[in-house]
């Protein structure tokens, strides 16, 4: 499959944006600049970026608690994302959602869910609207290997398949749900094997390779837009950091061995994409480094933006509850 240079460079930019955003989040979170959980996406950037590069702004996504990567991959703004983590009025959700609940309805990001599996039927619903109205958009639900065991996932896949809905089920299989190994909790070898039970294609993809993710997702999107129904894609990947910031202190006992982590770190998705670009003469080392440096800058500006944005005022507590407000009880 031919991928144009702009798309490849956009993917590299978004992957560096996520990486540098997450590094900054780890830094400021440990400095105590904001509280609350935050789940780093470091190591998994190619999955969301490759997948979202196959989407248009008019397509929809939903996601989960590991929620910074999806919106950035879909073209979301890092300043509004960072301000949300800081709980400020200029954040994506005016400080009401926080790290696990980023959303940008202007570019089809319907919202990240802290309750796992919960946002997958929602993505199916967006696809249902496209199906009923004859619109050409598709929707994509991001979920983890852990969440793939939720009943909602299985109900959604069956429903989407019988109605031939334009939805892509995108499993980020980083092989662990907090401390629980995928091998101990999923009865099949691969999450994508489950597709056959719902009579849809299941694709197992190298989730460290953004190009592979892009190609697989493009095929699923084409199928969805053609009215042929859903696809289950499993991006096999690995989370390089702790499950969530601060968790390392509380979990008792190691659940991943150092050798395994080191092995996966050798397959850094940024190295893999840069090597592809450089070896194929699409970009130079300098161009790649410049993209990295630009995103470092942008994240730095976003952090200043967040720090300088005010906190919501007490009366904002009651805003945004209803479309047609009702009196307080």
């Amino acid at each position, binding site marked *: 499959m031919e991928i144009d240079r702009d798309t490849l460079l956009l993917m590299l930019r978004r992957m560096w944006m996520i990486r540098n955003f997450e590094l900054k989040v780890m830094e400021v979170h440990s400095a105590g600049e904001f509280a609350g959980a935050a789940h780093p996406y470091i190591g998994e950037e190619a999955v969301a970026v490759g997948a979202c590069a196959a989407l248009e702004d008019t397509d929809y996504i939903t996601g989960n608690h590991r929620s910074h990567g999806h919106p950035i991959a879909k073209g979301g703004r890092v300043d509004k994302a960072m301000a949300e983590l800081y709980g400020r009025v200029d954040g994506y959700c005016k400080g009401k959602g926080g790290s696990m*609940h980023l959303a940008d309805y202007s570019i089809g990001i319907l919202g990240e869910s802290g309750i796992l599996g919960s946002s997958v039927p929602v993505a199916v619903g967006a696809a249902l609207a496209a199906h009923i109205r004859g619109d050409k958009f598709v929707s994509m639900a991001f979920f983890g290997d852990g969440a793939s065991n939720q009943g909602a996932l299985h109900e959604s896949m069956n429903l989407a398949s019988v109605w031939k809905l334009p939805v892509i089920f995108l499993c980020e299989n980083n092989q662990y749900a907090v401390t629980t190994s995928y091998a101990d909790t999923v009865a099949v070898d691969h999450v994508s094997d489950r597709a056959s039970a719902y009579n849809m294609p299941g694709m197992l993809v190298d989730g460290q390779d953004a190009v592979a993710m892009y190609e697989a997702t493009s095929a699923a999107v084409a199928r969805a837009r053609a009215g042929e129904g859903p696809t289950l894609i499993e991006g096999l990947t690995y989370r390089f950091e702790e499950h969530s910031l601060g968790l390392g202190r509380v979990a008792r006992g190691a659940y991943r061995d150092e050798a395994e982590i080191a092995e996966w770190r050798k397959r850094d998705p940024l190295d893999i994409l840069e090597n592809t670009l450089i070896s194929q003469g699409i970009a130079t080392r300098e161009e790649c480094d410049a993209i990295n440096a630009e995103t470092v800058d942008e994240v730095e500006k976003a952090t200043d933006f967040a720090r300088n944005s005010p906190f919501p005022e007490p009366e904002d507590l009651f805003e945004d509850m209803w479309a047609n407000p009702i009196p307080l009880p």
Partner: protein
Amino acid sequence: MAQTVFLEAINQAIQEEMRRDESVFILGEDIRRAIYGATADLLSEFGEKRVLDTPLSEEGFFGAAIGASLVGMRPVVETLTSFMWVAMDQLISQAAKMRYMFGGQATLPVVFRASMFYGAGSAAHHSDRSYPMFMNMPGIKIIVPSNPADMKGLLKTAIRDDDPTIVFEDGTLFGMRGEVPDNADLPGEELLVPFGEAKVFREGTDCTIVAIGGAVNHAIATADQLAAEGISVEVIDPRTLVPFDKQTVLESVEKTGRLVIADPAHKVCSAASEIASIVAEEGFWSLTAPIQKVASEQVHIPYTPSLEKHVYPDVPKITAAVKRTMEG
């Protein structure tokens, strides 16, 4: 008496009951490595068959616990209040209803331990204080401990009780230290707190505060501050909402004539609402002032600390409510 942290009290209760009764087992997500702290060291002592890490499938494993309880096991499920939504059908259609629907044949000694993580920037999806919703549904006993000793004693009672129980573990109390009696000093050498017996933390004559879970400490602080102003406040913790010790509350209101209820749940149809209605129905003639509910605002829990801090009952709000009852 030993000073014990709330989380350790949970751990002790489970450990003692698992030692005492082989039919007790525990299941939940990431409990072997005790990510929430309450299940520390259980795996090494009791092994993999009695300490089960489940797939991320609440509806499935809640139901499995219910089924195991029907045939003689005593499962303890670890979860968060907010994850119970995923498994509501099992909790309501099965756990709450089976015994009655099957004419008393079914016995369900199953315990759901649900942490309530509110007040710490966890946002709307992780901050539920949902006990009132379960009070509305007959069939489940509802426990909300406010200190380490009650936590331990009530959880042990819950594990031995033959009915389905949800123990709402208030996350704002996880680090709280309190005195937990040593077993050797107790009758029967163990700490068992009976259901349906409220505890009076402060005696007073001017106003009664009934407080729930994490609000109990705020109520006690309020009472102590108001004592300095010459206002004598009685503080009652019902400890279990189902069954509810209405006698203790009614007798207190008879004495004080005033009632404030402090409840971290949302205000509408809260535990506070139910307690207010009981006193309005059965204690009306004792009242000398309108009942005051101090509960959470009727909005979802916002992430940002600048808003979240305004949501819940706290000492200033409870103090103001007591003073309103003293006006006129």
